[in-house]
């Protein structure tokens, strides 16, 4: 056996027959395995098992010729086995008055037998017949095969619209079968029922470039249009790994926060109570005693707690380095109002206010404070507290968002892919009851499908 598996003979082995309808030469590639042969000249469907090639059907007047993307007689390696394309058909379904057609290619290997490729809008599937029956659920919404659950996607009546080459069954143009697809991307299991006979097949999504490469076809393959029923989501494998990484990063962020809160000194370097008499008039500004800011360049948090009650006080602050004359100038208002009206009790503001001054170098500092309030408000007491090297929770909050938002966007894109996939189904949207649990199930399915497709 060659590395390519059992192969057709080196040069195509064909048997020449003549069409009883038009006399044209017929090429038979499947060594008597064909049940029907279609004459390419007059489009007669012939009984290949009848020595006289009985004409079963003539459809040339009723169909439009369709050219196969993989020419019949082409050979290509599918999963390591060399196959020859021997048959081609177009099948059509009608959904809400709109026709949708796909193409099926019959592939043949003298040892391995038949295999099929399907193509719809540039999406390809590698199809083989199931050897064991899948386990269909009671309602028919899901089926299980080899431990994997497949969800019902679509059921429709498919009509054979055009045929060419050889087929291992009695093909007819106009023949209608009921086709049901169950998906677990990148795989699809299809049942085709015609009368009492049901055929089950399993397909796996193939990229168009892989098909082109396998059959060494010229040019570029037609680009896939839209999202196909069992097309693996390119985003969902990213969803899993991105959330895994996001989880690791969040643990690291939490560890970092614990470390920062443990390591940063959060040292109180100054605290003093002051009084402001707005009725007194005159120059209100004053300076505090000098205090030392130690360590590396770091932040300084200044908190004002004022005894305001339906009142306000505004404080112009300047944190001035005694040695360099460099000042950090800012103002803070502390106001607190409360009362009772027809809506009930209300309150606005609060009696404390904090501000963080970023990146203050070490040194000897003092505060210049200039309080303001309405005149004749009387005495307002306030306490000024200065702390050095205070952890900033806001950065951890921003980092949390920065990690969660991209992961959320990737998840949303993945869900959108699934939404577009299921929009083409019988359900017109993603299956489930719209609950959070249903959504989580869909994401999990999506992740699984992509993991399989990798």
């Amino acid at each position: 056996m060659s590395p390519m598996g059992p192969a057709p003979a080196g040069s195509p082995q064909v048997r020449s027959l003549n069409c009883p309808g038009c006399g044209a030469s017929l090429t038979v590639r499947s060594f008597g395995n064909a049940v029907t042969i279609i004459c390419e000249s007059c489009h007669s469907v012939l009984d290949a098992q009848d020595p006289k090639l009985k004409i079963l059907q003539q459809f040339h007047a009723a169909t439009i010729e369709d050219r196969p993307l993989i020419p019949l007689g082409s050979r290509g390696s599918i999963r390591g086995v060399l196959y020859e394309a021997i048959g081609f058909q177009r099948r059509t379904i009608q959904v809400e008055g709109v026709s949708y057609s796909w193409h099926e290619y019959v592939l043949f290997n003298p040892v391995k037998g038949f295999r099929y490729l399907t193509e719809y809008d540039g999406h390809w599937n590698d199809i083989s017949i199931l050897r064991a029956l899948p386990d269909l659920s009671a309602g028919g919404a899901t089926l299980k095969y080899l431990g994997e659950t497949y969800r019902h996607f679509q059921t429709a009546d498919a009509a054979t619209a055009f045929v060419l080459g050889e087929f291992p069954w009695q093909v007819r143009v106009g023949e209608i079968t009921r086709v049901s697809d169950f998906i677990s991307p990148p795989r699809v299991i299809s049942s085709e029922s015609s009368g009492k006979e049901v055929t089950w097949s399993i397909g796996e999504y193939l990229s168009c470039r892989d098909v082109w490469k396998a059959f060494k076809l010229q040019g570029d393959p037609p680009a896939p249009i839209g999202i196909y029923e069992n097309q693996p989501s390119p985003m969902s494998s990213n969803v899993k790994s991105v959330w895994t990484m996001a989880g690791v990063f969040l643990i690291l962020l939490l560890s970092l926060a614990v470390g920062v809160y443990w390591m940063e000194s959060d040292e109180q370097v100054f605290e003093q109570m002051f009084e402001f008499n707005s009725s007194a008039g005159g120059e209100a500004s004053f300076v505090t005693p000098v205090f030392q800011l130690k360590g590396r360049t770091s932040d300084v948090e200044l908190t004002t707690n004022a005894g305001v009650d339906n009142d306000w006080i505004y404080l112009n602050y300047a944190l001035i380095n005694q040695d360099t004359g460099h000042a950090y100038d800012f103002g803070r208002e502390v106001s607190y109002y409360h009362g009772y009206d027809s809506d009930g009790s209300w309150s606005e503001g609060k009696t404390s206010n904090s501000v963080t001054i970023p990146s203050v170098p070490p040194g000897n500092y003092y505060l210049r404070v200039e309080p303001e309030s309405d005149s004749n408000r009387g005495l307002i007491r306030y306490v000024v507290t200065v702390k050095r090297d205070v952890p900033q929770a806001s950065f951890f909050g921003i980092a949390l968002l920065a990690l969660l938002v991209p992961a959320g966007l990737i998840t949303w894109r993945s869900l959108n892919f699934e939404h577009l996939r299921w929009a083409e189904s019988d359900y017109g949207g993603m299956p489930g009851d719209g609950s959070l649990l249903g959504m989580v199930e869909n994401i999990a399915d999506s992740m699984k499908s992509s993991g399989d497709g990798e």
Partner: protein
Amino acid sequence: MIRSFFLVYGLFVLAAVSFAEYRGWSLSRVNEVPNVPRSVRDNPGSYRSVYSSYHHYTGGK
């Protein structure tokens, strides 16, 4: 591609937070005034805050 990007991005986010905390960055912004004269300690009224023209809230509901 996205996984590699997210790995680098996540490491960048963690590094940025660490650096911001180490350098004492803050989301607050204050005006910096260079070369304030030493005489301010003796005469605080000689310094004019840039916020002194701030229109104060005097409200309540």
